[in-house]
């Protein structure tokens, strides 16, 4: 076990597939875990039965379908259902890759800022494009809340514009920082167990506490893995709702 808690986030090149603009494009362990997540999701959603009375795996597939569908309906309304495949893909991708990441010795895809930022930027661009496509110039009403006194309106508009453009940043950093911090904490406590265990008998007794903490943190991380996927999804729905109904 590597003692350095940062080492688990290292990218390892598997093979290079080419170059774009002087940048080396490689398939890395991160890519492998992304593809693995896609494969697991596909297996879950397609490999299960279509019985009238569902089995366990079919129940999980249908549960995730209805969970995401009800999340969209409650936050973005029935109109938001046209983004159902996108939101479902986002939720399942983040949730499954996070859960895979909790397994020891695996890699967590969303512990890299560029991945979460890529996903957040995708949502941001869709909100922007769909917002203007559907509402035209009325989309700017998003920045002008109704019922605000005229003399502070310019200030409010500036704040709204800044907050709008910071959305992808907060959206992505939230997920990235949670996964990164959780995994570092987990690794630090786990390495205490290794270090204390190397001392001898006294160390074994002393290692009980960090071992227990590691187990507890793993359980917490499992919760965080799901929760952050849910938070990312519900924020996506809220931003999409802004695009569908720009008036506050």
């Amino acid at each position, binding site marked *: 076990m590597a003692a350095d808690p940062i080492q688990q986030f290292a990218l390892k090149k598997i093979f290079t597939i080419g170059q774009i603009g002087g940048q080396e494009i490689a398939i890395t362990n*991160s890519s492998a875990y992304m593809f693995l997540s896609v494969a697991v999701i596909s297996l879950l959603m397609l490999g299960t039965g279509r019985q009238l009375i569902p089995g366990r795996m079919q129940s999980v597939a249908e549960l995730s379908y209805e969970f995401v569908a009800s999340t969209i309906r409650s936050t973005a309304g029935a109109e938001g259902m046209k983004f159902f495949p996108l939101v479902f893909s986002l939720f399942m991708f983040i949730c499954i890759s996070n859960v895979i990441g909790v397994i020891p010795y695996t890699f967590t895809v969303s512990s890299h800022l560029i991945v979460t930022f890529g996903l957040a930027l995708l949502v941001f661009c869709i909100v922007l494009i769909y917002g203007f496509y559907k509402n035209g110039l009325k989309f700017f009403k998003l920045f002008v809340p109704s019922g605000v006194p005229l003399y502070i309106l310019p200030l409010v508009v500036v704040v709204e514009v800044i907050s709008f453009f910071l959305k992808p940043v907060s959206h992505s950093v939230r997920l990235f920082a949670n996964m990164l911090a959780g995994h570092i904490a987990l690794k630090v406590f786990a390495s205490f167990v290794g270090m204390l265990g190397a001392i001898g008998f006294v160390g074994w007794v002393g290692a009980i506490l960090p071992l227990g903490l590691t187990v507890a943190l793993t359980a917490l991380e499992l919760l965080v893995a799901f929760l952050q996927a849910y938070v990312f999804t519900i924020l996506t729905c809220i931003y999409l709702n802004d695009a569908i109904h720009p008036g506050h």
Partner: protein
Amino acid sequence: MATTAQTAADGGQKPPFPPFQTETYASQLVSLLIAFVALYLIVSRIALPRVGKTINDRQAAIEGDLAAAQRLKDESDNALKAYESELAAARSRAQAIGAETREKLNAASEAERKALEDKLSVRLAEAEKTIASTRETAMSNVRGIAAEAATAIVQRLTGVVPDGKAVTSAVDASLKG
């Protein structure tokens, strides 16, 4: 990218923080693009319609079953209602038949009684007539016998044959008195 990590590890210095190694960003974005587009296509084209159809089919099956159950319940209710009305109709019919029969029997016995009474009263009247004529005959006989007896008595007492006419009127007077 990995080369950087490699040289850093070889050099014995602390490797850079992996999430901030900008030279890996292009690779990760390309991988993410490939993975996410593949996932999106699988999810939107195959997985969601499939699972959605299963869920809708189940919903439809449940609703169909409930509707069928409701229909059967309605049918049984209607059958029960029909049975009850049939039963009531049969009962009233039976009562009507009973009343009719009773009436018919009453009328028949009444007619029979009347016929019998008529016959009896006719015979009674005949009998009374017979009695009256017999009595008349007897009375006239009595008159004759009384007159003869009176004649005989008078003849025996007086030795004279009385006048028939006077005897008859005397008998009549005594019969009347």
